[in-house]
């Protein structure tokens, strides 16, 4: 009963999301696109976190995807659509190589190397100006779908759908068991026959590809890429804060957090042009210290307590 209700709610929310351009103007649509983009990134960050590995590399893989898409069009003559697929493939291949090197590391070593990724990619882009356009970046001839507001919105929504589908796939498959077991205790996971390195690599490549895909969508929607715009630390910071606030280790948590913080971000951006990100720092600290399971975890705890009282 409860589950059916949830499904109904999800279906309604999905339908509303798809139909949004019919009643929303250009500005709300733009805001919605931002929220959706961050939501998708938050989901992919959480997917890897389910294995106990914290990646601070979202901005890095997002930016790599963005550049792959732009350069795919400019240097290899790809169509915009193909370039988005190429962005995902390129980020996936890059993360495979990187993961091969660093997924033998755990906790802080892994996290800090991923933290450096955006910086490293940015330096690479800076230093190959003939190919990448250097610090000034590159401009595409036009925006995908001629910049149609609803078209761009649906494209971003498509990116979110991929992230949601992958996250749901993770939850309903062996992946769920593998990641949960690895997060809980690697030693006992091994004794259950889990090849930890392999599963982590798969999870890292899948989440990185989606981050690259989103980077491709982003850059095709705006028609240009500069190192500062696509490797912006916000692409790491916001999804992380959203997932934490909403509740980690679930799909619904990051979705919830993204809606709350995404809307708040738009408002704050207008109010405080400099340093509004300080709010995210505070949210991260408060959530980690006082409700590490986030709002969704809190809600579950409260409803669980209510259930027990009823029983």
């Amino acid at each position: 009963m409860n589950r059916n209700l949830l499904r109904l709610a999800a279906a309604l929310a999905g339908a509303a999301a798809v139909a949004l351009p019919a009643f929303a103007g250009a500005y709300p649509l733009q805001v919605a696109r931002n929220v959706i983009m961050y939501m998708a990134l938050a989901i992919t960050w959480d997917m890897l976190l389910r294995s106990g590995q914290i990646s601070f590399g979202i901005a890095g893989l997002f930016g790599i995807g963005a550049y792959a898409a732009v350069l795919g069009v400019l240097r290899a003559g790809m169509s915009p659509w193909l370039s988005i697929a190429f962005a995902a493939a390129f980020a996936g291949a890059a993360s495979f190589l990187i993961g091969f090197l660093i997924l033998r590391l755990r906790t802080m070593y892994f996290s800090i190397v991923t933290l450096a990724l955006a910086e490293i990619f940015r330096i690479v882009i800076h230093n190959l100006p003939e190919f990448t356009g250097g610090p000034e970046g590159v401009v595409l001839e036009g925006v995908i779908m001629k910049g149609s507001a609803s078209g761009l919105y649906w494209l971003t929504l498509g990116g979110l759908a991929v992230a949601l589908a992958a996250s749901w796939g993770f939850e309903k498959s062996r992946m769920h068991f593998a990641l949960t077991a690895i997060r809980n205790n690697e030693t006992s996971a091994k004794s259950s026959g889990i090849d930890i390195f392999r599963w982590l690599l798969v999870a890292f490549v899948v989440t990185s590809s989606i981050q690259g895909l989103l980077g491709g969508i982003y850059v095709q929607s705006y028609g240009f890429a500069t190192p500062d715009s696509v490797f912006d630390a916000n692409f790491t910071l916001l999804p992380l804060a959203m997932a934490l606030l909403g509740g980690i280790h679930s799909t619904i948590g990051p979705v919830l957090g993204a809606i709350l913080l995404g809307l708040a971000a738009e408002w704050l951006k207008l109010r405080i042009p400099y340093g509004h990100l300080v709010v995210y720092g505070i949210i991260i600290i408060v959530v980690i210290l006082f409700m590490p399971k986030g709002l969704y975890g809190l809600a579950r705890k409260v409803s669980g307590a209510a259930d027990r009282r009823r029983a």
Partner: protein
Amino acid sequence: MAMKRRTTILVVLGLAAAFLVALWKPTVLIYGVQQAGLYAAIAIPMGLVLGIVHIVNLAHGEFMMVAAYATYFACRATGLDPLLAVLPSAAVTALLGWVVYKLTIRRALKAPELNQLILTFGIGILLSQGVNLLFTSQTRKISLEYVSASMTIGELSFGVWPFVFVIVATAMAVGLKLFLTRTTTGKAALAVGQNPRGAAIVGIDVDRTYGLVFALAMALVGGMGALFLTRSAIFPGVGGPFTMKSFCLVAMAGIGNIPGILGASLLLGLSESFLRAFRELRGWADIIFFVLIIVVILGRSLKGRKS
């Protein structure tokens, strides 16, 4: 044992690199050593925290940045020389560090390491964005005459001032070594670092020791913030790269190996300075720390598989 061997290897590699570079272009050596001093002086406090409190402080560079800003405004208001502000700045940052420890880090010590990483990441954001909010992202600098003092030996001419970082880094390494092995508090801190539970059993106040060590490390970083301001322009994001490089150096040296950080810094400083000597390669210098950490990591995982 392994630690000593690694220190020796790093120092030998560093010195060999230094020798080769000196033969080729002495200024590259000088700049490299100066840069190494700066890196080491910032990384050593991180090594201290990591070795004893077992926390990666992802806000490490941000603490230095905050100290530099505090120094900047204090000096602007009073006309004081930043050099004279080193000790007050250290005191203020130590206090800030102690408060941050008591309010946040202490609560996360028992939590999974994951939470600690995210927590200090959040603190870093809070500090850098807080400064951004208060003072905008405009760069600020204090011009000082003695900073441009230079020296000429034969045909060689170079700036002398940055050697202060080398002196400070060496003093830190020696001072910490003495502190940890000769004083009661230091010995207690070392014991806590090696075995907190055992240290608690013999009556050492672990929580207090952690707070003290964290405050001490932040004091060192705070002093460095004032010193950093003598030579460099500051902006809210100035500390971030130092967090990553510091971690890289600490990881290369091996956690708990403070003298090793000097060797690792020498290697990093010289390699960067070497690349900067070529016009076409200059832009790649900032990538070296990443290459080094990957090489170290790979080497370790290969060794780990063998044993």
